[in-house]
């Protein structure tokens, strides 16, 4: 009897635990709520939502999970507002925002995928990686046609770009510039001279840099890489894959030495300053300038609405303007699993049409100070700095995504950018020589290229 009891007890424990595991597993994306869709009346993904109306008998609303990088408060607020508006206007669909990890969004999304919790729709950044893995569904034609430019993979577009690439430039303390008679530089050397002048004045540091967030280093790195390398070899990365270019290339070395020269004007403690703190330095008059994207306009205004903010693009040595701009590789995507459910595909299309509807999109752009990418773009009422960015983008000599935003033969191996930034930080801090940095970068590159090489096709499933 005792033995039987023991066995029963063990069996109960085991099954209850296993049941718990089963309960925590993600529901199959294809398990749509029974009442939602009549498959025979399922809308075609390529049709407009009006033509793909939800089924007549919908007892329960269709639930869609949605994840985006919610580190930026303005972006988070904007997305919440759009989703709330959409849910209210579409009682048959519920888009559920799940918390995203703003600081390490790429890792977060990979983890969600690993544990079987890949969302129905998401903000996609590593588009090429997920497209190759077959995780994303292509956009319907009527959605693609909304945008002026999109990024295609083998003729298919997988992301709906939120806006134009986040154009970087100098956000500066206009009042201080006026008081001290400082002028906007026309060349890189004039910019360095401006930094020196501010440093010599001793009131505040010329620049604030949020070096604790390693991605923040990318703003300056890309700017100098574009001026030093891309200006003469737009296919430098492709040539590295081919083995015809090396990181000991003098142009690449110049990028690092330029970083070294520039960072002497950063605030003390720049390596332990997070991006979230740099606004405090600017509005608190601890630093005169920061180099970042237009999303910072809102943050500066929120921190101090009376702060007189100015903006200018940073030229190269000849005065040429190479700006980050145009549609990038990232944006809103639908998972391939969810796309198998016609109701989810239709709901996603409907959400995109709602998001890019003129009034909604205008609000989003104004909050984020982003530039529109839609064909039928809304008229955005921007601040002076927003207008300055718009003009600069119109007159820029070159517009391109960040160096880690390219795809095809110039796509960087996963996270090579962070390895580059960290190695560059070591050079700037003096814990590594430039020669050892380029050696280490080359070694890391050789290993990365042996696993992934878009030029030879290594590491890419046929």
């Amino acid at each position: 009897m005792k033995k039987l009891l023991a066995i029963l007890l063990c069996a109960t424990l085991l099954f209850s635990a296993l049941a718990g595991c089963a309960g925590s597993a993600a529901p199959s994306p294809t398990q749509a709520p029974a009442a939602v869709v009549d498959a025979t009346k399922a809308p075609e993904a390529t049709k407009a939502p009006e033509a793909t109306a939800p089924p007549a008998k919908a007892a329960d609303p269709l639930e869609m999970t949605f994840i985006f990088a919610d580190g930026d408060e303005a972006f988070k607020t904007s997305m919440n507002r759009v989703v709330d508006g959409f849910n209210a206007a579409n009682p048959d669909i519920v888009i559920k925002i799940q918390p995203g990890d703003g600081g390490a969004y790429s890792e977060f999304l990979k983890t969600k995928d690993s544990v079987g919790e890949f969302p129905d729709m998401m903000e996609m950044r590593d588009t090429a990686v997920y497209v190759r893995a077959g995780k994303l569904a292509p956009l319907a034609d009527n959605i693609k046609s909304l945008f002026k430019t999109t990024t295609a993979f083998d003729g298919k577009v997988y992301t709906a770009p939120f806006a134009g690439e986040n154009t970087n430039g100098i956000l500066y303390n206009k009042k201080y510039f006026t008081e001290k008679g400082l002028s906007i530089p026309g060349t890189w050397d004039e910019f360095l001279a401006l930094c020196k002048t501010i440093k010599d004045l001793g009131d505040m540091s010329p620049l604030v840099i949020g070096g604790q967030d390693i991605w923040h280093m990318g703003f300056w790195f890309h700017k100098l890489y574009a001026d030093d390398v891309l200006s003469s070899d737009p296919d430098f990365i492709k040539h590295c894959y081919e083995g015809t270019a090396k990181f000991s290339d003098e142009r690449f070395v110049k990028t690092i030495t330029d970083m070294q020269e520039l960072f002497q004007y950063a605030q003390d403690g720049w390596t332990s300053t997070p991006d979230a703190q740099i606004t405090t330095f600017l509005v608190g008059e601890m630093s005169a300038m920061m180099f970042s994207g237009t999303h910072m306009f809102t943050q500066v205004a929120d921190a101090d609405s009376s702060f007189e903010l100015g903006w200018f693009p940073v030229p190269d040595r000849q005065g040429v303007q190479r700006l980050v701009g145009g549609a990038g590789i990232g944006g809103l995507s639908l998972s391939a699993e969810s796309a198998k459910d016609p109701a989810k595909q239709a709901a996603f299309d409907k959400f995109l049409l709602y998001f890019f509807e003129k009034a909604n999109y205008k609000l989003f752009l104004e909050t984020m100070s982003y530039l529109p990418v839609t064909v039928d773009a809304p008229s955005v009422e921007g601040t002076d700095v927003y207008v300055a960015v718009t003009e600069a983008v119109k007159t820029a000599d070159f517009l391109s995504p960040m160096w880690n935003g390219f795809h095809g033969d110039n796509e960087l191996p996963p996270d090579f950018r962070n390895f580059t930034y960290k190695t560059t930080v070591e050079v700037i801090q003096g814990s590594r020589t430039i020669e050892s940095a380029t050696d280490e970068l080359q070694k890391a590159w050789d290993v990365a290229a042996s696993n992934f090489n878009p030029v030879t096709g290594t590491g890419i499933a046929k």
Partner: protein
Amino acid sequence: MRSNSRTTAAFIAPAFIFFTLFIIVPTASSVYYSFTSWDGINPYIRFVGLANFKEIFTSARFGNALKNTVLITIFISALENALALGLALLVDNVSRARNFFRAIFYVPVILSGIVSGFIWKIMFNYNFGPINQALQSLGLSALKRDWLGSPAFALASVGVVLIWKGAGYYMVIYLASLQGVPQEVVEASTIDGASSLQRFLRITLPLISGAFTINFTLSLINGLKVFDQVAVMTDGGPGFATETIVYLLYKVGFSEGRQGFGTAVGLVLLFIIMILNWIQQKFLKSREVQL
């Protein structure tokens, strides 16, 4: 006898099944993945033989992570145990508010590594952190440092947090052991004229050597798998100055899309822990005094 074995087996079975499912099977599968270049996302998995292990033993990055891990392990094993023993002696000898002190010293232990990391990240902040602010207020601005941003101080700063967080736990083990020291032996040595220092060195220390073995083993393992505080406080930086093996494993596996290489690093770490633990057990066990 036979029915006893069956009952025993039945009781062991659930734990065995869970252990097999969640420890043995993943470990075995990670051996397989360590020979591939899998990115953790793509179903296409390419076999690369020993390439990952070759890279581990030739890469400067792994060497740097190993160096950091060893340094932090030695640093925290030594100081954490010294501090824990000091706290245990203090609490053991204090006659009033003993429980209060025990609780105070133990509080950091119950905080998660992430929470303690965030707290100390604020404390160590160069421009706004209380530590540098206090130094400035005391007119000691020359002592202000970029505690987490300087390659010279970042690893030690992380170590300080680990010690602060872990010492209370080891204190409890030392305290239990101290309270198990037979008082008659201590009294006999006092009658024989032994000084306090002699009593501590000749009587107390040998009799609590079992606690040393446990605590050093635990702090060694904790040192080798430092992750939370590094992730929160420094992200392995500045540069790679605080990147430890476990953090490297995480970064390459999840951030850099190299799950195959990450699992290879994990296996190497497993062997390192096994070897170090074996050496430590051999050394410390031989010094234990059995009552």
